[in-house]
């Protein structure tokens, strides 16, 4: 297996992008990554596109074929990778395997979604199509609903308070306000969303015990990266970052069949695989992007990855350990909560954000000093298909 380097990254601002089609968003992010890699007029060997809903929302299938044509990357191999909200992570994994195996030398991975062109009603239904058709979907359960049931159990078992959930929302929206790519750039305070009368209006229940500010927005957006073998990099213009490890694990489709529904086994397994491959421990990670589609997930994942013991994640969030300047800063991009969650794009965007951190390219209010190792968790379904990546800066 060859070491795989990320030599180019690109992202377009997430949010509501009425002016762009899904294909245009994928193309813009790809062009940024190609330019960042200094590929100029050169082509790539293969393209992997992470996308969940093009066939449903845009009524457009086989979009990887359209993308290589639009970008004049012909005759590059091109595939769409669909794995729910982990589509982006799965696309990255496929790209990494293709380069590591020696089959391809230069690979473009891009992930994106255009979710705002439909109604919230339809978008919620589209995301819910990943639940079990007969045992879950027919009842009208949504992903916020799954998260609500999980949160109730997690709060009861580990004593997580609403105050801790609010702390995650405040932290991530603060970071989103510093990130020009973020969908939500509005910083919030505890007042008005937590414990006063205004919070009833400002922060209504969406799936109790979860409230509006516990959930990520529905976003349009795309992100891309270029992979190549580390051994082929000669005098790179930017500090190389390698995919030092990755892991992927699955769990039961339905929540009710898990022995302990609060145990996110796939998160634990995927991150363990990634850390073992990178020969690192959770304490060696300097910055992480976790899949906070709901605030509870940042807390739960921070424990399942091993940054904190079970039951300690909420305390860590409240004490600032996961904030910028804390012992393990999490979601300095704003996370899904603020950067946004275009489902097929998220797993790629997380890797892009970590690459920026490890290249030390971010403005000082978001840059972890001397960051060398970063980790991502991309959470598909309700934890039934999870990918994790460990990235490392290679010193010249």
């Amino acid at each position, binding site marked *: 297996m060859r070491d795989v380097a990320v030599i180019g990254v690109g992202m377009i601002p997430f949010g509501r992008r009425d002016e762009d089609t899904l294909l245009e968003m994928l193309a813009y992010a790809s062009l940024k990554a190609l330019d960042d890699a200094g590929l100029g007029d050169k082509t790539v060997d293969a393209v992997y596109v992470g996308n969940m809903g093009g066939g449903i929302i845009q009524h457009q299938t086989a979009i990887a074929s359209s993308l290589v044509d639009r970008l004049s990357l012909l005759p590059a191999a091109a595939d769409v990778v669909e794995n729910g909200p982990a589509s982006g992570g799965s696309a990255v994994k496929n790209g990494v395997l293709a380069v590591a195996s020696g089959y391809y030398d230069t690979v473009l991975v891009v992930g994106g979604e255009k979710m705002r062109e439909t*109604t*919230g*009603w*339809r978008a*919620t*239904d589209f995301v*819910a199509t990943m639940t*079990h058709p*007969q*045992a*879950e979907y*027919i*009842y*009208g*359960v*949504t992903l*916020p*609903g799954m998260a*609500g*049931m*999980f949160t*109730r*159990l997690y709060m*009861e078992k580990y004593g997580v308070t609403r105050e801790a959930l609010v702390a995650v929302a405040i932290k991530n929206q603060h970071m989103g306000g510093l990130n020009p790519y973020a969908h939500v750039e509005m910083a919030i305070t505890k007042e008005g969303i937590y414990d006063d009368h205004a919070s009833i209006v400002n922060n*209504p*229940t*969406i*799936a*109790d*015990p*979860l409230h509006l500010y516990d959930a990520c927005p529905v976003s349009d957006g795309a992100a891309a990266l270029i992979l190549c073998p580390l051994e082929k990099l000669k005098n790179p213009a930017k500090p190389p970052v390698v995919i030092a490890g990755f892991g992927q694990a699955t769990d*039961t*489709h*339905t*929540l*009710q*069949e898990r022995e302990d*529904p609060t145990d996110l086994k796939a998160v634990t397994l995927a991150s363990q695989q990634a850390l073992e491959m990178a020969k690192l421990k959770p304490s060696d990670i300097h910055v992480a992007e976790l899949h906070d589609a709901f605030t509870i997930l940042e807390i739960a994942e921070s424990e399942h990855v091993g940054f904190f013991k079970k039951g300690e994640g909420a305390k860590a969030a409240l004490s600032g350990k996961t904030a910028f300047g804390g012992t393990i800063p999490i979601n300095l991009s704003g996370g899904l909560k603020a950067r946004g969650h275009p489902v097929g794009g998220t797993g790629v965007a997380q890797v892009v954000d970590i690459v920026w951190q490890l290249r030390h390219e971010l403005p000082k209010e978001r840059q972890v000093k001397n960051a060398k190792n970063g980790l991502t968790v991309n959470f598909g379904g309700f934890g039934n298909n999870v990918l994790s990546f460990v990235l490392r800066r290679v010193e010249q």
Partner: protein
Amino acid sequence: MKREIGIVAYKCKKCGKLHYPFHDRCLACKGREFEQVKPQGNAKLLTFTRIYNLPWGFDQRYLTIGVVEFENGVKAMGQLKVDESYPLEVGMTMQPSWESVRVQYGEDVYGLALRPLE
């Protein structure tokens, strides 16, 4: 007319693990032979949520969803038929029934409905 609960669980003939929904191989021992098991008795509420942002197909203000465990160990999701103000609690005993849980393409779709045992 009272309808029979339309859920069928599957007990592995090799190791006894109970599954719902169906799996072609046992999640515990990979066995492929199962005995069909119908849920029995009332059900204990394991977790629940009240959803206010509903998906396409539900023209109502909220929906209450929960996961329950029947007396013979079968676990399933269902719709909780209670008012918004009803004080639901984990551990409550619920009475199951098989009712229309949504309408798709003009047709009723039947599923598990649950009400607190008064």
